[in-house]
């Protein structure tokens, strides 16, 4: 039942499409559409068909368009920009493909200055998309805003010159043909060719029109009988003139249109390529940094402007800068811009140049977001060079694409973290179980011996008592060591942030560790061989001491009495090396690989039957690696084991 209603809901889901234009009253239409979208609780898309006329249009026109675009976006619309001459067709196609149920357009009274007068957009829409509801909102000022195309005089001069040259060339050729006795048809063809060439070479239809008229007149003047007069004897000539004029004009118009489409499709192809590349790069990028890098550089490629990208997750708001082309980014005043960026982060709304907020800035800032979640802010240098509508559309796509990628990355990371956390919890649970188990033995011995001494103390001879005291003491020392290792292990597992690093002399650390072990060293002699250089390392001293204590205690535990334990400090280039070598039985090769694993207790029988948690060496490795070093175990000559670790040396600059 429920599934059924869901299905119905899905089927009846509305999707509203609103036409964007540069009309001042377009805002009213957008607002109406937004209200409808709200009432229907459905998505809203704003579409703009970028025509060649728009690109050539005035800056005012474009600015108005951007205003409308911003408005639509702030009302929650997705912006789509498509290209083409035929706005109605493009809109209808888009509507059909993306499942739009209602189209909201303004009633435009624009009379298109084309050869064939086109019916109104709304009428065309009705023809192209009969199955879609079309809501027409009156748009009174539509006619007044549509300004004439801008042309400037150098352009006119150039075009006129070109047209004249081509025309003169055609006429010369025709004169030659005429002298050679070719027929009129050939001459007409040459003139038509001239008109086509003119329309390709010039930037406006008016030139090919003029060229057509001129061709007909000159043909009449020069080549028809009577020559050198605009009269024509043959009755068929007027028809020839008309046909010639129409043929020239129509081929010319097509050539122009083809040229425009070619340049448009080249641009579109470039933008599509950037979008496609962006998708590819984003899918390959790993981690937030790479994603931001990809987004920044792709936007840079698209716009060829200076770009700054701010990471939403960073507290310090340090941007990544992407200078345009020449590789230099003139001083970006971070302190000044910070306020805008934090405003964008806080309000999830664009700001900076060309917007209502902080318009004094030379940068325009966009929020990279998915729904209400903001992942980053992209700043684009505007500097009185506003973005083109087409660029704008691709930019918004890249931003949306990027934000989605950031969201995916974040989700993946969170999932990974959750998995890691679960694993760590599992480890912790294991650890706890093993510890509780292993604690029982020494605690039983301590409490048993103590209670024995309390209640039966008088029955024991002095030697027995001494033995009991020693057992209590050694068991409690074992517990103390265990607790130290556990504390260090929690510290290391919580990650780098908990390391309290300071720069210390390595030999001081070794001395302290040796001092710590002397009490339990028994019959072993610990020898330290210091290095002549002063070896400084940056480390969490307590953890590093723990490493040495564990290594020394292992050597004490697993090697026969009277054998020496040697600790050697050496300098290995940029690393400081410590070796702890013993003369014991050594580590069998099959154990060498796994000896640093957690809870690994080795296959050799433990000399004094002392329990081992298998935590010590695991911890050593974890600590050394947390300090960007490494630890290995090797064989000593002639017998025994060598634990060798290296840590990066720290350069110390000192003041006298």
């Amino acid at each position, binding site marked *: 039942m429920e599934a059924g209603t869901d299905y119905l809901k899905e089927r009846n889901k509305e999707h509203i499409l609103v036409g964007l234009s540069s009309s001042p009253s377009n805002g009213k239409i957008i607002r109406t559409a937004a209200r409808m979208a709200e009432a229907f609780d459905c998505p809203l898309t704003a579409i703009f068909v970028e025509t060649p006329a728009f690109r050539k249009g005035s800056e005012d026109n474009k600015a108005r368009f951007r205003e409308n675009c911003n408005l639509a976006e702030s009302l929650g619309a997705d912006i789509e920009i498509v290209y083409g001459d035929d706005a109605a067709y493009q809109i209808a196609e888009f509507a059909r493909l993306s499942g739009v149920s209602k189209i909201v357009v303004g009633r435009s009274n624009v009379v298109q200055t084309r050869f064939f007068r086109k019916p109104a957009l709304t009428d065309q829409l009705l023809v192209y998309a009969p199955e879609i509801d079309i809501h027409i909102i009156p748009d009174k000022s539509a006619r007044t805003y549509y300004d004439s195309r801008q042309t400037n005089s150098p352009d006119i001069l150039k075009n006129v010159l070109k047209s004249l040259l081509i025309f003169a060339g055609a006429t010369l050729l025709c004169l030659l043909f005429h002298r050679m006795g070719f027929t009129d048809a050939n001459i007409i063809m040459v003139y038509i060719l001239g008109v086509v060439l003119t329309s390709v070479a010039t930037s406006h239809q008016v030139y090919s029109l003029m060229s057509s008229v001129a061709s007909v007149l000159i043909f009449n003047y020069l080549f028809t009988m009577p020559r050198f007069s605009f009269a024509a004897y043959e009755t068929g000539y007027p028809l020839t003139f008309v046909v010639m004029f129409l043929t020239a004009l129509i081929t010319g118009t097509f050539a122009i249109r083809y040229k425009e489409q070619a340049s448009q499709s080249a641009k579109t192809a470039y933008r599509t390529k950037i979008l496609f590349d962006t998708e590819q790069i984003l899918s390959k990028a790993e981690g937030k940094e790479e994603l931001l890098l990809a987004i920044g550089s792709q936007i840079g490629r698209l716009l060829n402007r200076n770009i700054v990208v701010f990471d939403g997750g960073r507290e310090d708001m340090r941007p990544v800068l992407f200078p345009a082309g020449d590789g230099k980014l003139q001083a970006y005043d971070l302190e000044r811009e910070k306020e805008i960026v934090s405003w964008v982060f806080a309000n999830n709304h664009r700001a900076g140049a060309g917007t209502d907020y902080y318009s004094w800035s030379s940068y325009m800032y966009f929020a990279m977001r998915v729904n209400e979640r903001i992942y980053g802010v992209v700043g684009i240098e505007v500097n009185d060079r506003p973005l083109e509508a087409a660029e704008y559309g691709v930019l918004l796509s890249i931003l949306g694409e990027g934000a989605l990628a950031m969201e995916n990355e974040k989700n993946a990371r969170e999932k990974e973290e959750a998995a890691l956390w679960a694993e760590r919890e599992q480890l912790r649970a294991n650890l706890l179980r093993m510890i509780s188990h292993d604690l029982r033995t020494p605690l039983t011995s301590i409490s048993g011996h103590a209670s024995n001494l309390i209640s039966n103390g008088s029955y024991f001879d002095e030697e027995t008592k001494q033995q009991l005291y020693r057992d209590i003491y050694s068991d409690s020392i074992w517990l103390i060591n265990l607790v130290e290792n556990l504390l260090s292990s929690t510290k290391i597992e919580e990650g780098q942030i908990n390391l309290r690093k300071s720069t210390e002399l390595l030999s*001081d650390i070794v001395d302290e560790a040796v001092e710590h072990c002397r*009490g339990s060293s028994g019959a072993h002699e610990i020898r330290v061989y210091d290095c002549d250089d002063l070896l400084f390392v940056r480390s969490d*001293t307590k953890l590093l001491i723990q490493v040495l204590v564990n290594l020394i205690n292992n050597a004490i535990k697993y090697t026969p009495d009277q054998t020496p334990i040697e600790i050697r400090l050496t300098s290995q280039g940029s690393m400081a090396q410590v070796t702890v070598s013993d003369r014991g039985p050594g580590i069998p090769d099959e154990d060498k690989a796994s000896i640093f694993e957690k809870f690994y207790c080795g296959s050799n029988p433990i000399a004094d039957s002392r329990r081992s948690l298998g935590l010590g060496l695991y911890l050593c490795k974890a600590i050394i690696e947390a300090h960007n070093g490494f630890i290995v175990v090797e064989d000593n000559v002639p017998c025994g084991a060598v634990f060798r670790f290296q840590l990066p040396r720290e350069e110390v600059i000192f*003041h006298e």
Partner: protein
Amino acid sequence: MNKVQILVIEDDEPVKNLITTTLKARDYHYIAADSGSAGIMMAASKNPDIILLDLGLPDMDGVEVIDRVRSWTNTPIIVISARSEDSDKIAALDAGADDYLTKPFSVEELLARLRVTQRRLSLMQPENERPAVFCNGDLKIDYSAGCVFMGEEELHLTPIEYKLLCVLSQNMGKVLTHRYLLENVWGSSWENDVASLRVFMATLRKKLERGTNRPRYIQTHIGIGYRMLKVE
């Protein structure tokens, strides 16, 4: 029979028992207080020779106890800290404590600290009259001539090393924090200078303790500071 009297300020009963039984076994006189305020009262009324002070007291911060006691007496204070963080030890030492112990500590460690402090106590007697020549084992410092001898041989120290050695010798037995040394040798306590301090201390020790495996004269307390030990 030890004539020194020790004040133990510790609220934790088992640890207090451990300390007092150890002291009793070694024939020390002791008095005990289980709060900071009681401890301050006793320090004032009984005039002990050494104070053992736990930093984690129920009624007030250990550093505050040190501050109050230091307002009228230089009685050596050894602090006992359960926390393994260095910062509270440094705070206690900077407030005027002489030495520190970290829990869990062994009985031997406690007794060793007491012995060091006692020796320091005996040297502290002629307080206003500093001898012109300082002797510690084979080490001899002639303050008036500015010369340092190890046995018969004169050591060639740089001015900074000499100044360091003087500050350490004048505070023999006391743990001096990095900050204290920086302020008294360099006249600054710029954090970055700790590195310089380590370098000079390392070269000084190389000169003092040539060929020995274990530090005899100068003890390093990693992350905290240095101390000159009395050498027999």
